[in-house]
């Protein structure tokens, strides 16, 4: 691994994206590593220089992609990297989902998986080497064929060319000979100036199958004899089946079986509709367990009490208590952000076919190794008897990266019980009420300013659950008693404050929580960027200039902030009735700054425009970066305006898109993305665009109302002008 990757990885492990860091430990299962390889075997028609690329006699280049495609563009950006080094003809490049095999493990996770905005940067070196090795072997094969020195040869768009003689041979014609040549240990990589694809806005390879209905998501998998199961799960987290009667369910035409599994009662039928009717007809008695009184309002008080406790220290600089005596103005406020569901468009689902000596799984997943290992555990089969096929994912956002593989284990358990292939389908209600939420986060934050308006101290306490404590992630993600995902984006801020103290108080577990697109930064950025705006106001300074004044030790963030201000015309006056707000945040190795322009119309917040500046280092596909930023704006705005999972009598109050609302076309702002020319190390783009959205928008709203929004989602009274 190169220096760049090692360094990035270290940072990656220190911050959230440790997503899988811990799994190296937790899922270090030797049996799996010894699994017989069934990949990369060159069939007669193909030449596979390594596990990531296959070159066909028909000149088709197949890139085997080990990162799931969930919309982020992995099935295009990763093939681009290989194709560029290979000098392939892009028109002949296609992708294929990798099978489960240790050779496809995520270099940072130690298992196969997708997440942490890592897919492109973490494979940058490996995929360039894979392509360059292929090119080397093809060159060597051509040199042998023509009996010339390889240095007299060049490659272009799928051909090796001997310039002195004008001879030309296609890669496909070299396949047999190339397969006989041993790959070198090291290959020379292209100079950046020679990139043909990298850095260009290349069209996605997966679009054609996504516009004619032919793309296969997990939900669309059809195998002979497959039945459909819909599962009744406990209405309160941690609840258990006390008793049930499936007679009425079985009376529904099409219902085949009613079986109990660990997580509930599965109604199995010859299609979704009878299975769903059957599930509705189940007579269930639940033991709701200790969370049966869970209530959001009561939890607010519980979290407020916790915030007064001494927490685990995430950051300590200077001496806050002494600084408090010197401050001329002091501020002490509370920000409170709710649980959030990922709500991918494709509800969770999984197809499993368990037989005596095999288990085959088709699933849109971010965590292949965990899923396959869990299936092996449930069936008692050897890891190499489990075969998992990764389908397209209808959205992920973290929801399809689960440590307990619950949506896979359900299908495996049902298939094992009924001895038939089965597809478990979650309804939207199952998904919204199914847990694994972004943790609720309750922040108390205080600061004091000196006479010049500069912050003297900054004291921040975060109360939220940990999804790492008590799991295999704990060893890696929890350092000195602090869950890194709870405080990321808060323990390090880009503003100079001489005395700083950041603490975390762990809220009791019970509600299942998980990483949600941008993880800790999804709440910390709102607090830090909202609070710095409050301080700017108190200091009587322009919010952009105030930030800038405090950013000398963070030149990268400062540059991005300045860039967005320029691109958005920060200094230009707005039409009457409009306000603008600014925010900047670093996460997943990238820095994103935004300026939002808003107005209030008919008691609604209208976001007109969001200008985005992003520094993600080396650019692979600029159009993918733009698309991710556009998507991040929608994701962040949806949460800011509507996102809330709340509890009453232990149960989730929301159930579908009418009460867990999504941003729609008529609310879509113009998103204007500017990618910075950067020499920084490559960072991620799938998540870093989410954190700055809510603060930029709410800071803009403040300029219209004079009221600070510290709780999300936005409430109608937040739109009324302060009296």
């Amino acid at each position, binding site marked *: 691994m190169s220096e760049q990757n090692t360094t990035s990885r270290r940072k990656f492990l220190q911050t959230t994206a440790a997503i899988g860091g811990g799994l190296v430990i937790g899922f270090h299962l030797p049996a799996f590593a010894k699994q017989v390889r069934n990949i990369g075997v060159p069939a007669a028609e193909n030449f596979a220089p390594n596990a990531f690329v296959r070159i066909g006699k028909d000149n088709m280049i197949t890139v085997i992609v080990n990162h799931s495609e969930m919309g982020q563009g992995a099935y295009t950006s990763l093939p681009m990297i290989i194709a560029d080094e290979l000098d392939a003809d892009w028109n002949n490049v296609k992708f294929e989902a990798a099978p489960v095999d240790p050779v496809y493990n995520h270099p940072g996770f130690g298992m196969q998986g997708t997440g942490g905005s890592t897919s492109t940067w973490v494979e940058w070196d490996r995929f360039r080497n894979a392509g360059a090795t292929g090119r080397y072997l093809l060159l060597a094969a051509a040199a042998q064929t023509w009996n010339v020195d390889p240095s007299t040869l060049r490659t272009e768009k799928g051909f090796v060319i001997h310039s002195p003689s004008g001879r030309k041979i296609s890669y496909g014609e070299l396949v047999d000979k190339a397969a006989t040549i041993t790959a070198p240990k090291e290959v020379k990589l292209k100079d950046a100036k020679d990139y043909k694809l990298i850095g260009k806005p290349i069209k996605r390879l997966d679009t054609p199958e996504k516009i004619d209905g032919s793309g296969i998501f997990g939900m669309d998998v059809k195998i002979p004899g497959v039945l459909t199961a819909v599962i009744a799960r406990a209405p309160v987290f941690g609840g258990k089946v006390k008793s049930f009667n499936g007679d009425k369910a079985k009376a529904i035409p099409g219902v085949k079986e009613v079986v109990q599994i660990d997580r509930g009662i599965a109604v199995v039928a010859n299609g979704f509709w009878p299975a769903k009717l059957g599930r509705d007809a189940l007579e269930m008695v639940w033991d709701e367990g200790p969370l049966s009184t869970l209530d959001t309002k009561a939890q607010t008080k519980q979290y407020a009490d916790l915030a007064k406790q001494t927490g685990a220290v995430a950051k300590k600089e200077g001496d806050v208590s002494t600084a408090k005596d010197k401050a001329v103005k002091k501020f002490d406020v509370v920000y409170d952000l709710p649980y959030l569901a990922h709500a991918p468009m494709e509800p969770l689902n999984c197809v499993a076919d368990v037989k005596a000596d095999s288990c085959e799984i088709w699933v849109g997943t971010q965590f292949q190794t965990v899923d396959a290992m869990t299936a092996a555990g449930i069936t008692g089969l050897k890891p190499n008897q489990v075969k998992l096929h990764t389908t397209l994912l209808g959205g992920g956002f973290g929801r399809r990266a689960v440590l307990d593989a619950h949506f896979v284990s359900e299908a495996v358990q049902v298939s094992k019980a009924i001895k038939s292939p089965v597809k478990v389908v979650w309804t939207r209600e199952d998904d919204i009420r199914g847990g694994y939420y972004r943790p609720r986060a309750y922040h108390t934050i205080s600061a004091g300013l000196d006479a010049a308006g500069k912050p003297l101290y900054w004291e921040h306490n975060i109360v939220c659950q940990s999804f790492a404590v008590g799991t295999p992630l704990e060893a890696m993600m929890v350092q000195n008693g602090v869950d890194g995902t709870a405080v990321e984006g808060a323990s390090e801020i880009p503003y100079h404050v001489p005395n700083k103290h950041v603490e975390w108080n762990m809220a009791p577990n019970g509600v299942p929580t998980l990483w949600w697109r941008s993880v800790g930064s999804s709440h910390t950025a709102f607090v830090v960027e909202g609070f710095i705006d409050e301080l700017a106001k108190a200091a009587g300074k322009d919010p952009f200039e105030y930030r800038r004044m405090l950013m000398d030790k963070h030149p990268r963030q400062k540059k991005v902030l300045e860039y967005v201000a320029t691109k958005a015309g920060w200094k230009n006056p707005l039409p009457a009735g409009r306000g603008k707000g600014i925010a900047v945040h670093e996460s997943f190795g990238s820095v994103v700054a935004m300026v939002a322009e808003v107005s209030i119309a008919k008691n609604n917040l209208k976001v007109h425009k969001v200008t985005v500046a992003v520094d993600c280092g080396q650019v692979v596909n600029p159009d993918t970066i733009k698309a991710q930023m556009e998507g991040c704006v929608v994701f962040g705005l949806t949460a800011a305006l509507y996102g809330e999972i709340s509890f009453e009598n232990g149960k989730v109050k929301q159930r579908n898109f009418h009460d867990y609302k999504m941003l729609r076309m*008529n609310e879509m702002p113009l998103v204007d993305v500017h990618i910075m020319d950067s020499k920084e190390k490559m960072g991620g783009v799938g998540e870093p665009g989410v954190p700055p959205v809510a603060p930029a928008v709410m800071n803009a709203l403040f300029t219209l109302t004079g009221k600070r929004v510290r709780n999300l989602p936005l409430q109608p009274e937040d739109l009324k002008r302060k009296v």
Partner: protein
Amino acid sequence: MINLKVNGKSYNVDVDPSTPILWVLRDALELTGTKFGCGMAQCGACTVHLNGDAIRSCITPVARAAGQEIKTIEALSEDAIGKRLQKAWIEEDVPQCGYCQSGQLMAAAVLLKEKPYPTDNDIDLGMSGNICRCGTYQRVRKAIHRAAAMK
């Protein structure tokens, strides 16, 4: 038995008449391009054409479609508007995860049939029933304008 005409083909299906069209398409006819997103007409992923109108197949009982013409995403390319939309979708690189795009395209096809040169406001009205969690709205809008401009 209910007779359905789907994408120009005739089928007799033996299902409960209250079964939503969506599940007849997906489970009985194996036309899986039409997606399940919410089951209560909130998201538009299940949009198909019934006699040329955009309907939410997740809440429309199959009995309502008996003997009538259903068109799904699998047959979108069979008319000029559908072809233009698909071309525009590629040129604007619209989809991300892609799960909602069948519904987006089917809704856009009806919009363009009714408003050959839609304004942004027309697009807001015609497309706000279709949720995209990945947030491709800006590109959907551009692609509809692009398709409208193609001749």
